[in-house]
């Protein structure tokens, strides 16, 4: 089996690879979004803590 025929998916390349692509995108988003937001939150909280307490 060649790489070309693998990518071609028996003529169904568009359907198969779009499916896998969208799945990857959604799963990555749900994984990375909380990480990015947490980093931001931690940065904000750290800034708040450094500021002198009222």
């Amino acid at each position, binding site marked *: *089996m060649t790489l070309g025929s*693998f990518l071609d*998916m*028996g*003529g*169904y390349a568009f*359907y*198969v690879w*779009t*499916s*896998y692509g*969208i*799945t990857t995108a*959604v*799963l990555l*988003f*749900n*994984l990375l979004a*909380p*990480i990015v*937001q*947490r980093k931001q*939150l*931690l940065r904000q*909280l*750290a800034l708040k*803590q*450094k500021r002198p307490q009222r």
Partner: protein
Amino acid sequence: MSFIPAPISRFFHRTASPPHFYALANRFIPWLTVLFLLLLIPGLYGGLIMAPTDYQQGDSYRIIYIHVPAAWMSLFIYVLMAVMGGIALIWRMKLAEVMLISSAPIGAGFTFIALVTGSLWGKPMWGTWWVWDARLTSELILLFLYLGVISLHGAIEDKRNAARAVSILALVGVVNIPIIHYSVEWWNTLHQGPTVSKMDKPSIHISMLIPLLLMAVAFKVYYAIALLQAAKLELLKRESSAQWVKNLLEKTV
């Protein structure tokens, strides 16, 4: 918690305390990620390369390796959310509230994937992007249920109230899911809708089945990782003024 033996109850309380859970999550995430890759890579290899081409559907059937596990996950996560909701309502456990809320977007994500891949799988079969097939229709309704949970949580300002509301909603939803599912299935046979549920045939070849199961377990592990990440964020948001968060900040800065 009177009917749970004291040591177990103590264990739960310790694990469920936010700082302890946060540290535990950090410890588990790398191991889970390794496990996920160990399942995903052979799953994908088996599904996309090893498994033979289907004599009816050609290679397009390879979409089931994500469609079917995603559909399973969408239901599994909703049921789990209802369980968390029950725990949150009965024992007032904060961690259960956090887990419930953190699960919702992940579950909605899987439902969305199941819908889109179902549509992409169906297009070459049916010649149209959307048919009112029983499974797709149920998934669509499930997506509405998830969106209801997410928007209700977003609309209520007080976080404890929001968690309570969402717990009630998840429990009501989970009672309704089987009713909705069977109504839709019955409605579908009635109107002679098309069905291509490959999974209903018991004669699936073993070389096709193994990658499917691998992918299903891989998705479960992914859910665990994503859930821990989301729960960490939610805990920080809720407890931002607690002492353990301050200690954490001092350590990182």
